């Protein structure tokens, strides 16, 4: 099957025959007991696609312990996954729109990078109430991926995610806009309030990725303190360490665009340690400036 063609999500007779063939495929006996699980997964997924039931497709694709990510290196599985996502999108699955949109955005999973398609899918998912899609669409507008940078539209996308779902990433992105004075007036107090709120929400939701990003931002703002107290320096060190761990995980998962920020986290920790050591050597304490 041509994966790019499958992206149209149309259930042609040829594709039906292909899916039926997958459903009736004999399981391969494998001593390591891996292949039967893979084949079973493909059978169940193919069956859900034949039913054109978006709920069933979602349940199969996103179930715990699924083979989803393996599809990137497994041609047969990858084709079924992509077609499943495309069919579910035509049937109104916001989650599948978000996932396929991300593949278009990143150009992964054999999907050619196409920001316009990504934006269309994100917008549809956002209208169906998927907050991550709103955030992702915000990125499209903020970075001008479809040709025009539009901070107003980006802000409204992030705001939508924050207002409708307390989305920690949406909240820290709005913080960025207040910090940089983009579309809204520059307000560092508001930015810090939002970064802290995002951090707390991410902690509650057990979202280490968002927590790492919020931690980085809080620490960067604290860098602006003219004479940080000893306590503030230790807090910053703690935050940069947390940010580093979170970003190492993101980079390992494929988000290589976080590498420069990861390197900055490591550098900042080194600088802070040197400052603390210097104070210790000189017998200086800055507790009186603690705020």
């Amino acid at each position, binding site marked *: 099957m041509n994966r790019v063609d499958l992206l149209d999500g149309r259930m042609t007779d040829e594709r039906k025959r292909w899916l039926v063939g997958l459903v009736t495929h004999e399981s391969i006996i494998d001593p390591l007991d891996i292949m039967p699980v893979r084949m079973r997964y493909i059978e169940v997924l193919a069956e859900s696609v034949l039913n054109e039931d978006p709920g069933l497709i979602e349940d199969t694709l996103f179930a715990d312990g699924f083979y989803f990510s393996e599809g990137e290196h497994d041609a047969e599985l990858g084709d079924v996954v992509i077609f499943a996502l495309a069919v579910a999108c035509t049937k109104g699955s916001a989650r599948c729109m978000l996932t396929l949109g991300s593949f278009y955005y990143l150009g992964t999973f054999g999907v050619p990078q196409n920001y316009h398609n990504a934006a269309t899918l994100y917008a549809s998912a956002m*209208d169906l*109430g998927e907050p991550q899609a709103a955030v992702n669409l915000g990125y499209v507008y903020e970075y001008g991926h479809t040709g025009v940078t539009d901070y107003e539209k980006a802000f*409204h996308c992030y*705001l*939508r995610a*924050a*207002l*409708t779902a*307390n989305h920690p990433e949406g*909240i820290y992105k*709005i913080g960025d806009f207040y910090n940089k004075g983009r579309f*809204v007036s520059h307000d560092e*107090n*508001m930015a810090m*309030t*939002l970064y802290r*709120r995002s951090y707390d929400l991410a902690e509650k939701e057990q979202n280490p990725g968002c927590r790492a990003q919020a931690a980085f931002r809080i620490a960067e703002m604290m860098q602006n303190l003219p004479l940080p107290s000893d306590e503030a320096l230790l807090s910053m060190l703690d935050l940069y360490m947390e940010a580093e761990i979170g970003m190492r995980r993101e980079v390992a998962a494929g988000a290589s665009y976080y590498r420069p920020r990861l390197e900055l986290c490591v550098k900042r920790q080194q600088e802070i340690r040197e400052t603390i050591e210097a104070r210790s050597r000189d017998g200086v304490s800055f507790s009186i400036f603690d705020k």
Partner: protein
Amino acid sequence: MDRKKLLDGELTEERKTWLKGILESLNQNPSESLSMDEYLLKVLINSVLGGDSFLIGRVLPAVDPSKHRNYESICDVIVFAAAVGSELGDSECSLFLGDAMVLGHFSLSPTLSRGSRYWGRAMDQGNPEGALRFADYYEGYCGHRDYETALSYFIRAVLIGDNAEAFYRIGDFYFEGKVVERDTVMAETLYQRGYNFAKEGSRKIDRASAAVRLAEVKRDKGPIQQLSLDALEEILAYYTEAESIFQDCNADSVLYLKSDFERCRKGISEVEERIDMLKGKGLEEVD
């Protein structure tokens, strides 16, 4: 005491002596004979002397200077306590002081510019009510109308801290297509969030206001003749809940609630009439 100077919130030795003097005069009575008002005043002064900004913020609204013989002196204590609490970082104190200055309470000369600085401080200290004050001002409650700025402050209120009122008032902007593009789906989501937060919180009046709006946005889905019986009954449930709360709060006598209460009563009348008609005709569903 010079009340204007007390606004600096500095606990100088002179001011400590002054406060201790008031405490002594209260302590001259055996504690069993202290009235509740005197007791609250004692707690307030002790919290100022002890630098307990949290307690200052919670006791302040309960101290009524009109219940004391030396009204002006107690006004001085209240204003100073609020200023101390605000300087120590308590947003309730900042808000209290801002309101007092804007509205001219405690014999202060009303001043919007100075009072609003404390609203701003409350907002910076993480209190969404500070943002709501600005939003009210720009929405025209004090005569000045700037909807775009008002919306930006409602948004701040929600971003700072899940404020039920802010949610449904932003929802109004989406429902009416004011400043933003009309979006009834977004409006309903925001009204629902406001309603849910109000349910968990202590402000029933917010729940009522959110409930009225939920009823209206659900009514907006089509002409009333086309709404199903189930939909009508859901709408009526929201209106009825709101009406009950408004009645408990004597909303008729509160200016900013009167309009919501009237919408509620009108809505109940129209929806009940439609339901009665459907039930009278024996129709359960309308195409």
